[in-house]
């Protein structure tokens, strides 16, 4: 214990070097903790399930340009063709692709009226094959029947009689008992009633950054518009083989439209989260490089202070200090420097987090992460000082007798 005071007093004689290392440690801790925190938030978002059987799904867009195009007949033909194709499990027409970024939203409320606030919900217009095609899990109520599905002419703004909603939407509308949503009436456009006939476990909205991303509804509509999308689910493992076949099949079956953007759901997810992924990769490289720089800084300054004290160390060795005592001197010194830096760093990490929370509306950091940062930096400090400390311990007692 007596040694601690000794090391501390020795440290005070070289304040600036120690201070520089402390500051580096402090900033490293600040950046590291906040960067890991930001990465965790993004990873958590990326890991949410979309509710779809993503691996076996792909979608394409169907753009009609011919002036005389019999939409109802052609759509039925398309769907029949797709559903009969070998290897296809099921297929639907849909107005928007989940997590793709573009779609349609409306508001639902449990009572009609202009002055009641509504809950935002993503709208998917589909037929009775949607649950099977998308791979959704119906947890209450029942699927649409073929007779529920109506035609929606272009430019028409009415709504059908029934809807299937996600569990998250049911919870938002009926916070006390989400299952009571079955058989209940929700109002769209302020006062048009919709009977809730089914609840699916999950189905994400098109917008991954929206706080209501889990709130979606299915309505039984076939769309008579010039642009729509098809989603196709294949038997496991047959997606890539079927994509070009189906593109060709549809393109050739009718020349009055363009089939484009044949895209897997995997690719849609990758695109959707590309920004998140990029930020995470950048942040992790920052952490790695920062740790290396701080480590090298510690090595450099420790080497320097050891060089300066060669004679001292030699003298101590000549007076009987063991190699271990010399090594532990530098390791304890580093522990002291680290501790000072870590105290500053915790304050810095919390302040940076407060700034991030207030400027970018992130959530506050959790304490475990700070503890992790503290432990990590003590370890980095000790590892970095190991080599210089070993070199110091190797200094021979005879050095004491040499000049300079």
């Amino acid at each position, binding site marked *: 214990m007596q040694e601690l005071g000794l090391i501390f007093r020795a440290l005070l004689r070289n304040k*600036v*070097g120690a201070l*520089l*290392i402390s*500051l*580096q440690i402090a*900033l*490293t801790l*600040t*950046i590291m903790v*906040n*960067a890991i925190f*930001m990465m965790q938030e993004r990873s958590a978002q990326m890991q949410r399930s979309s509710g779809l059987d993503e691996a076996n799904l792909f979608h394409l867009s169907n*753009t009609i*340009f*011919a*002036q005389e195009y019999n939409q109802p007949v052609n759509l039925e033909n398309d769907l029949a063709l797709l559903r009969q194709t070998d290897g296809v499990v099921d297929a639907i027409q849909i107005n928007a692709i989940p997590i793709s970024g573009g779609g349609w939203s409306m508001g639902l409320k449990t009572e009609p009226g*202009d*002055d009641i*606030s509504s809950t935002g919900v993503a709208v998917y217009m589909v037929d009775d094959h949607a649950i099977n095609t998308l791979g959704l899990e119906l947890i209450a109520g029942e699927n649409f029947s073929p007779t529920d599905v109506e035609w929606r002419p272009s*430019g*028409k*703004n*009415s709504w059908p009689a029934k809807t299937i909603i996600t569990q998250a939407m049911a919870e938002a509308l009926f916070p006390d008992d989400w299952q009571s949503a079955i058989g209940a009436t929700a109002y769209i*456009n*302020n006062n048009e009633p919709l009977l809730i006939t089914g609840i699916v476990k999950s189905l994400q909205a098109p917008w991954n950054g929206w706080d209501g991303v889990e709130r979606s509804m299915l309505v039984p509509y076939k769309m008579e518009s*010039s*642009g729509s999308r098809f989603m196709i689910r294949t038997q496991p493992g047959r997606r890539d083989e079927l994509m070009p076949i189906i593109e060709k099949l549809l393109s050739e079956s009718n020349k009055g439209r*363009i089939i*484009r953007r044949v895209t897997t759901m995997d690719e849609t997810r990758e695109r959707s989260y*590309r*920004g998140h*992924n*990029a*930020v995470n*990769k*950048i*942040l992790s490289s*920052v952490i790695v*490089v*920062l740790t290396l*720089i*701080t480590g*090298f*800084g510690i090595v*450099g*300054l420790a*080497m*320097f*202070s050891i*060089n*300066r004290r060669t004679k001292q160390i030699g003298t101590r060795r000549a007076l009987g200090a063991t190699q271990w005592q010399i090594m532990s001197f530098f390791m304890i010194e580093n522990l002291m420097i680290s501790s000072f830096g870590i105290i500053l760093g915790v304050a810095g990490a919390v302040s940076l987090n407060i700034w*991030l929370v207030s*400027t*970018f509306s992130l959530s506050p950091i959790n304490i475990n992460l700070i503890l992790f940062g503290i432990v990590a930096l003590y370890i980095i400090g000790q590892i970095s000082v190991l080599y210089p400390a070993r070199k110091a311990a190797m200094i021979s007692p005879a050095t004491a007798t040499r*000049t*300079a």
Partner: protein
Amino acid sequence: MFSYYLRLAWISIIKHWGLSLVMITAIGLGIGASMTTVTVNYLMSANPIPHKSSVLYNVQLDSWDINEPANDDGSPPEQLTYRDATYLMSAKKAFRQNIQAQAHSVIEPEGDGALPFMVSARANSASFFSMFDLPFIYGSGWDQSADDNKEQVVVLSSEINQRVFGGEDSVGKSIKIGGNYFKVVGVIDYWNPTPKFYDISTGAFDDSEEIFVPFSLIAEEKINRSGNTSCWKPPGDGFQAFLNSECVWLQFWVELPNEQAKEEYLSFLNAYVEEQKALGRFERPLNNRLNNVMQWLEQQQIVSDDAVMMMTMSFMFLVVCLLNTVGLLLAKFIGKAPEIGLRQALGASRRTLFSQYIIESGCIGVAGGLLGLLFAWLGLQGIESLYGDMLKGLTGLDTTMIVSAIVLAVITSIIAGLYPTWRACNVQPSQQLKSQ
């Protein structure tokens, strides 16, 4: 003397090459990281039309629901309704005005085997081309009579002209768009303002459109409108009902030559809204806005949060790298105390010593800066490969950035060298000489 000091610096850097390498790498990494993020931020917030940005104004009217504002911060909707925008267009109260919307269509090229393809379109009024200074290769934009008479005319981008007409002068030829024949009146050269200030509703860094057609054709349904559409009231059935609805989907820009014209135009807007209030519309408090290009981009916060956070982090990173350099320079210079003492004893003044060591720091800075440029270039390549077309056009290093990187590197390394140099100059020659 300068070249002598340079030589001394060189000798010293080579002699302690390990230490020097660590310092140069640290500065390089710090500069590289900062320049990468600064470049992205700088390009995101660049002025897309520098010579005119102060006279072009975006118009916002608060036509939204009385129960809740269009945006949480109380700002009016970003786009206008068809009713309001067409009224402002016909009122002609500004020096120039432009109504515009996103659209899309299918081009069916003539000839066997040529497949129909989708194009992105902009439906705009005639003044678009003069207001935003579009560069024409052939022909020109249409004139106002084409708008009024709903003529089927089109301006093509050079890519589309290449694809359909093989790049030749196609003015006067016709092209089948969405089942109707349009007459080509002009072909523009590459024009892709970044950010896409004139319409950021579906993305501030989207590409500009492939064809331009008269806005009046939208109401004729000769071209399909698209893009961001928000309604606070159900629009009703049919296209006419949609045009009369409270849905916002149009961008409206005016050119106002001076501050006085701006004031006048704003009073005109306010008077219009007061008039509409009498008809039961515009139930919210008066909240109309005229923002010039840079104010508009600023208000819309098109620099992403991620980019700002990254830049903050990278500057902190640079500070760590500099602290590192200060520490290592200190170690290096203090290690030279005997040499310094000797030189002082032989008559070197503090001033000469100071210049010598500052020059040495500067050299390390220049080397670090050059390495930093390389890292910045690698960093931008990396960002480009990570983001792909999401950040297209935002990852190029220009001369301004290259010069700033070097200047930043030299300044920071000289600052980093100040304290160690000062310490080095304060060596007591007598003490040093004694221990020799």
